[in-house]
């Protein structure tokens, strides 16, 4: 499978065409996705129409840029005009948005071909995509294992060669963790870097739009296409977007990589520790300085996150009331009974659990002890990172404590939550963070290296990731799902 930049360069040379590429991807989805389960909706007709328009631009020698004609997939959490958007939930099963999310508009403007909408944990709550109300998604490296989550469908689509790139969302690690599990690149940019207008909200102070790709160059292309201020999202930052691809080749000489002690403690799979430490050695050989740093509040991250995120979710998901859109269970004697029955039937177990937890944490008498305390701990986590970034340019750590686990293996909610231990801190601080492939365990399952950067400094992050990638063979390996 080609990367996006290889594919669109081939379009420009006339070696292949957007229509041929889109047809090839649709054919692969048709023959292989029954096995992988990446897609909830395949938009064949719209994709072919977009590919024909792209092809005409190439013929006229006027393509819109390096994403023109690139076949990509979107997590089913982004509103797409006229195309069903479910969030993996029964409560939105028939919802057809009347508008496109800003990031969807920007992708279309860049000429991208949208192949379809991918499976996810319901409302992005989960780390395995097993909480989808509709189907299981399988890891292309081992079909008995999860692809990670919550953006598991988008990760599996890229890893399985069912899309050339894709987008997910990362609230506590929902792009970095599936990228690590599926052996691809996943980037959570700085909070506010990409507009969230048209993204169905889960936890508003934590939700990030985030791309998946085969390599760092494609990741930089996808980020550059959608980043930037949007007046329709008041939380989007009004800061210029650099040319991320142009800066990739600058190398790591003169940069200092920090290695946080707390990310290598008990609970980390020894094979992952070996791979990540070997990756840090590669960065040192490439010319980077390496320093130990400490982020003492790391162990409080999961507890803090599982108050903040459910609290915000309980408020955001109050809008699903069976009135304006989505499911309604009729027959209640009054409005409250209709709403309560609709929500009970429409939400799955994990979503109900988080709504309950969040409602409890915000309720009278508990607010200060739970939500208030969590927000103060969030300040302490931020201070840890500020102290580290006074000394180093980027942090290097594992993305996950384990490799992809088997379906059904983490039935206990808390065991599932602990999988986010290394991704949550960058989510709570809004710092940009990327997962890049850094090897395989003895069973052939991928391992991810996580790099965390300074606020709005995706450029340095991508530059370090690119230097590492170019010095190692991991990004060239593909699973065989045929």
């Amino acid at each position, binding site marked *: 499978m080609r990367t996006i930049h290889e594919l669109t360069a081939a379009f420009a040379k006339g070696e292949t065409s957007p229509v041929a590429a889109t047809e090839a991807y649709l054919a692969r989805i048709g023959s292989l996705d029954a096995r992988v389960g990446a897609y909830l909706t395949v938009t064949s007709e719209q994709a072919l129409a977009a590919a024909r328009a792209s092809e005409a631009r190439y013929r006229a020698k006027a393509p819109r840029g390096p994403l023109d004609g690139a076949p990509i997939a979107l997590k089913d959490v982004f509103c797409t005009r006229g195309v069903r958007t479910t969030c993996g939930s029964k409560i939105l099963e028939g919802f057809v948005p009347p508008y496109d999310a800003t990031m969807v508009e920007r992708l279309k403007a860049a000429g991208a071909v949208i192949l379809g909408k991918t499976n996810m944990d319901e409302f992005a709550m989960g780390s395995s995509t097993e909480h989808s109300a509709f189907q299981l998604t399988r890891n292309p490296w081992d079909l008995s294992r999860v692809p990670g989550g919550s953006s598991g469908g988008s990760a599996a689509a890229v890893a399985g060669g069912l899309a050339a790139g894709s987008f997910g969302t990362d609230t506590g690690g929902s792009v970095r963790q599936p990228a690590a599990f599926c052996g691809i690149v996943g980037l959570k940019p700085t909070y506010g870097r990409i507009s969230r207008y048209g993204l169905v909200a889960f936890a508003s102070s934590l939700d990030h739009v985030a791309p998946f790709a085969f390599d760092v160059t494609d990741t930089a292309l996808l980020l550059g296409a959608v980043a930037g201020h949007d007046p329709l999202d008041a939380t989007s930052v009004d800061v210029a977007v650099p040319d991320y691809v142009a800066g990739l080749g600058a190398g790591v000489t003169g940069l200092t990589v920090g290695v946080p002690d707390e990310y290598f403690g008990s609970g980390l799979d020894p094979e992952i520790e070996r791979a990540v430490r070997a990756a840090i050695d590669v960065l040192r050989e490439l010319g980077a300085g390496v320093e130990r740093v400490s982020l003492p509040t790391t162990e409080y991250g999961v507890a803090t996150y599982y108050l903040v995120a459910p609290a915000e979710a309980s408020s955001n998901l109050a809008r699903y009331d069976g009135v304006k859109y989505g499911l309604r269970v009729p027959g209640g004697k009054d409005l409250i009974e*209709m709403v309560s029955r609709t929500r009970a039937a429409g939400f799955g177990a994990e979503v109900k659990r988080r709504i309950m937890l969040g409602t409890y944490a915000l309720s009278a008498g508990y607010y200060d002890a739970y939500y208030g*305390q969590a927000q103060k701990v969030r300040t302490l986590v931020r201070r840890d990172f500020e102290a580290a970034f006074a000394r180093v340019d980027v942090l290097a750590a594992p993305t996950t404590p384990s490799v992809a686990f088997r379906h059904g293996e983490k039935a206990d909610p808390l065991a599932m939550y602990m999988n986010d231990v290394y991704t949550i801190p960058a989510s709570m601080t809004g710092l940009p963070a990327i997962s890049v492939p850094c090897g395989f365990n003895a069973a052939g399952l991928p391992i991810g290296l996580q790099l965390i950067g300074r606020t709005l400094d995706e450029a340095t992050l991508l530059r370090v990731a690119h230097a590492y990638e170019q010095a190692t063979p991991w990004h060239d390996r593909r699973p065989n799902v045929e």
Partner: protein
Amino acid sequence: MISRQDVEHVARLARLALTDAELERMREQLNGILTYIDKLRALDTAGVEPTSHAVPLVNVMREDDNRPSLPQGEALANAPDRSGEFFRVPRIIED
């Protein structure tokens, strides 16, 4: 510890009509999660300002101009029940 009555109260606040079995499982699971979360109490946060957002945000203002909005037909197109130009809901006010 969160009691069965607490769980029922929170379910009412959250507008979730849970079954007896769901309420019981929820009590057990919430207790497990809250016991873990209690580790936060060990941290001294006296004098620490809360962080509500990852990046500092102040009020974002714009001109109060007229702009096109969603046409009525599109706004109503996803409604489970409607009456003319309205969303229809079950009775709210007692006779």
